[in-house]
């Protein structure tokens, strides 16, 4: 089936004049497409506007995202907060996402149609070069109706709009070819290993569901087993859960960008801030022998092996004496709750602190490492495990740096023991996430329809769309394959 696969090829406005379909449909589509040049288009036909990161991926000072197409002007209006953005004028503004959150402070430049690189209306967003911010901005653009550009699409659009010299045609063709090869190569690399098996298992279940339903649509005369939606429902439910699981790895990919959230906590003056400084090798956190120096949270990113850690230093846990301290301690509890990993710092020279039950409850399902600090003040032997449970105990000296490497290894082990590491092959890229999101909606629609006994051909319509989405990742699925499935599964024929 070829729904939507080869269709995003041209970004020209649809040729409604040549449209030979009933006028009622035309009216409906035109109503949503109305554009007198000034009025903003509330909705464009899907796929006409596209966006992409134009600077190389990875950490950099600035990341430029270009958004092209009929929706670009509305985007400039919304972000720059001006009714008519001046073309080729830089606006310094907040990037406010559709959900109202400010994602970044950006410099926006609007190019009107006919005078941009591509010839279409175009907006350039210069963001900060943080991959996470850029990803969030792209995701927000998707919500606004943009789609991810195909390889070489900006250049191709420019060429088609007559913005490039004709003699560059060959160069453009080669560029498209090279880019698509590269995209293919990247996709292949990504599809190597476990992830492609996940996609294939979705695809197989999806095709089985479609083949089953199609058999009952196309062969009502055949002696098929009595029609039963249970099998397809199971298949669709399987696809849904699998798609959801894969989409959930978007969180992991954020984790990778943002770092594993690691919270340092412990009694006052146990040396938590010193430990952070030891990690960082600089006096980032304010350290003093006075208990309760850290009232706010300090967050820093360090690299442990291949993993980024976002380390959050917290106020010491003790029976609070002031209101501010109580507030700080409550926040510490919250941070522990959100943490992927906890480092419990204990002063080796003092008795183990006696915390109340709330703390142990908060730690119950957490990955906690017990760090025995200030070994420079106390000779070995050190305990290997905490007395109150079997937490691994790591003796260090934040002051001299002894044991920090061992601690980092332990952290590495802990991080890799997390789901994150096991499912690393699941981590999906933004293009795949986009396809999976669309597939998820379509699958959910189909599931609901089948369950409610709605016309089965409508459910198949949704499933076919989902198939195209997954097919967009793995390659076009020919309808012959589905027919083959039907004929191998059911005995059909006069």
């Amino acid at each position, binding site marked *: 089936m070829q729904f939507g696969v*080869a269709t995003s090829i041209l970004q020209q406005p649809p040729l409604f004049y040549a449209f030979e379909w009933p006028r009622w449909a035309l009216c409906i589509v035109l109503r949503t497409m109305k554009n007198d040049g000034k009025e903003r288009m509330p909705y464009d036909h899907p796929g006409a506007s596209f966006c992409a990161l134009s600077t190389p991926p990875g950490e950099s000072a600035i990341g430029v995202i270009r958004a092209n197409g009929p929706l670009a002007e509305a985007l400039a209006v919304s972000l720059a907060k001006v009714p008519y953005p001046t073309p080729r004028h830089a606006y310094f503004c907040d990037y406010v996402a559709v959900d109202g959150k400010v994602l970044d402070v950006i410099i926006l430049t609007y190019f009107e149609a006919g005078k941009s690189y591509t010839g279409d209306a175009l907006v350039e967003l210069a963001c900060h070069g943080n991959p996470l911010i850029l990803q969030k901005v792209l995701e927000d653009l998707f919500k606004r109706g943009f789609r991810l550009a195909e390889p070489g699409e900006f250049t191709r659009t420019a060429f088609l709009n007559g913005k490039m010299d004709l003699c560059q045609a060959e160069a453009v063709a080669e560029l498209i070819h090279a880019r698509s090869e590269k995209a293919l190569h990247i996709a292949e690399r990504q599809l190597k290993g476990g992830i492609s098996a996940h996609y294939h298992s979705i695809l197989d279940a999806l095709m089985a569901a479609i083949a089953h339903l199609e058999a009952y649509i196309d062969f009502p005369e055949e002696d098929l087993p009595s029609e039963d939606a249970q099998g397809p429902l199971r298949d669709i439910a399987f696809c849904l859960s699998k798609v959801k699981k894969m989409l959930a790895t978007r969180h992991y990919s954020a984790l990778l960008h943002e770092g594993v959230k690691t919270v340092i906590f412990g009694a006052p003056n146990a040396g938590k801030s010193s430990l952070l400084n030891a990690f960082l090798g600089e006096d980032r956190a304010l350290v003093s022998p006075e208990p309760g120096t850290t009232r706010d949270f300090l967050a820093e990113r360090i690299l442990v092996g291949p993993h980024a850690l976002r380390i959050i230093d917290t106020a010491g846990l003790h029976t609070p004496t002031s209101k501010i301290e109580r507030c700080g301690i409550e926040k510490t509890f919250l941070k522990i709750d959100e943490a992927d990993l906890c480092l419990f710092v204990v002063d080796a020279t003092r008795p183990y602190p006696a915390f109340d039950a709330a703390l142990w409850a908060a730690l119950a399902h957490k990955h906690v490492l017990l760090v025995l600090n200030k070994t420079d003040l106390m000779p070995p032997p050190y305990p290997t495990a905490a007395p109150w449970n079997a937490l691994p105990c790591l003796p260090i000296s934040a002051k001299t740096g002894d044991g920090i490497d061992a601690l980092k290894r332990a952290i590495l082990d802990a991080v890799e023991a997390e789901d994150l590491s096991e499912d690393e092959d699941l981590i999906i890229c933004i293009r795949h996430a986009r396809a999976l999101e669309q597939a998820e909606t379509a699958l959910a629609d189909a599931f609901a329809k089948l369950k409610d006994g709605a016309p089965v051909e409508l459910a198949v319509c949704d499933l076919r769309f989902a198939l195209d989405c997954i097919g967009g990742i793995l390659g076009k699925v020919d309808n012959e394959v589905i027919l083959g499935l039907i004929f191998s599964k059911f005995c059909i024929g006069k």
Partner: protein
Amino acid sequence: MNSNDPRSTQNGSIARPEERGRQEPTDVGDLARTTRTPLEAILSRSSYDVIVCGAGHAGCEAALAAARMGARTLLLTGNLDTIAQMSCNPAIGGQAKGHIVREVDALGGEMAVNTDFTAIQFRLLNRSKGLAVQAPRAQCDKKAYQFRMKQTLEMQPNLHVFQAEVTGLILRDGAVAGVETNLGCAFKGKTVILTTGTFLKGIMFVGDATVEGGRMGDFAAKRLSKSLLDSGIQLERLKTGTPARILGRSIDFSVCEEQKSDSEPTLFAFYDTREEMFHVEQLGENRVGWGPNTRSTSCWMTYTNDQTEAVIQANLRRSAMYGGKIEGVGPRYCPSIEDKIVRFSDKERHRLFLEPEGIHTDEWYINGLSTSMPMEVQEAIIRTIPGLEQAIITRPAYAVEYDYAPPTQLQPSLESKSIGGLFCAGQINGTSGYEEAACQGLVAGVNAAAKCLGLSELVIGREEAYTGVLIDDLVTKGTQEPYRMFTSRAEYRLLLNHNSAELRLIDKAAQYNLLPEARVTAIRQKKAAIEHWVSRFEGTGLDARGTLADALRRNLQVELPYAFQALSGAIREEVLYRVLYRGYLEKDFAHIAKMKAIDAVRIPSDFNYETLKGLRNESLQKLKKIRPQTLGQASRISGINPADVSVLLVYLRK
């Protein structure tokens, strides 16, 4: 429609055999020793616009369409008594096929009317499902169907029907100039439509016995096959089969389940836009056939059992197909009974339909029991089946293998890419089914006539009709097995509901003058009424519940306007369909609009793909072979990816 007296234009146009001329070896069945006329002598005579070779379901529609458009048309058939013969089961329509028959009617074809007036059982399939996938099906009286079609051809102005076997093409300057026949006379024509069915080098198999012929009792077109090869047309082999026929009086119906006709027939032709029940040009004649649904019969169901399986298993090696005699590829959706038993061994029983061949005969067709076993095994198989223990077999089941010309050699107009003026339709293009043949014949007939009359070619889009899907699939992807239409082959299935065939194709029908003017007007009015009511439903507010259309979509109880309820069922059904499915239809329209953009980009027929840089070699080879006419067609070739299409686009814009 041209209403000239047919007889006035047709006499005297048969080329007579010349005395001089080479002697040709004669085939059995030739009427006289073949003599061949020198080419120049033939071409100096008056000629036909369109010559149709074969009078099956494709040939009949091709000849009628061409003649109705005003082209001087000749229909040649090896046997006038087998016109429009249903070589396999006595039924027209069914899922996707029924849709096609209605499209044939929308384009002025004959199959729908002919079915309605000779049918003995009507059923609407998929009644429990949505409108888009419901399809009409009818059992027909085979002989009545043939007689009525024959009479229609005979009465058609501009059409000359003649009995002769075509033995070769006459070519001139790479284009077709006429055909040779076994009668020693040749006919010259500006265009030729080949609708050879299974006759090209047809061989039939009944176990070890092989018989040459395209159908039991008929000849095989061996010389034409050779002529096509000599003309540079590539031929390959396909296989199909048909079950045995038995006498009704020998069937014990008491142990079979009855399958009755619907009480209300779903007819194939559109009568709400017709002034008369018949085509205008056929008025006043003493027509064969009867009023739709006036003769009703039932079909019956029975099942195979363990014994049947045992007999088949014991004799498997004697099957022509399992014995390795047949090289042609058979259809996956139409397996022989031995194939079903082997491939679905876990299935306890296989259902069989007993279908009457007509009311003028006591022969019955055993649907589901096609086989290529030897006669005695066939008999043993049939005797194991409840109700058929005493069956008297009148005709054996057989498999037939035949030549087809892979359809990727054709343009979307069904004209050959290599030989100008040569069109192919039906099984020669690798399809299967009467309906598939008919719609191709119609399109080929229109295009052959259009070529002679200087009109542009008729190409039906995938979004317009199953006919469009069928032809696009054939010329773009080709086929490895006999191609049958399924609704799942159409990406815009929801737009192609059978009720809307007339509305979808009205502009094309009007453009080629395929319908009487009064009917064109009636269809346009019907279309306008539907659009009016859809927009009225979408626009009428119902206070808090949104518009009337919203309420319908949410399945709320609403009072529909009286004026609406008073409309004809065809209009009401279509209005409700468009309202209820609006979301889906809109998605399709958006998709179609985008496809139109790339379909509008034409690729010159002499486009040199070799000069393209940046195209993968695999894609290059495919494009060179298929030579798509538009960028849209290129994008549908399997294995052509969007990047290839982009590269092509860049060069086309250069």
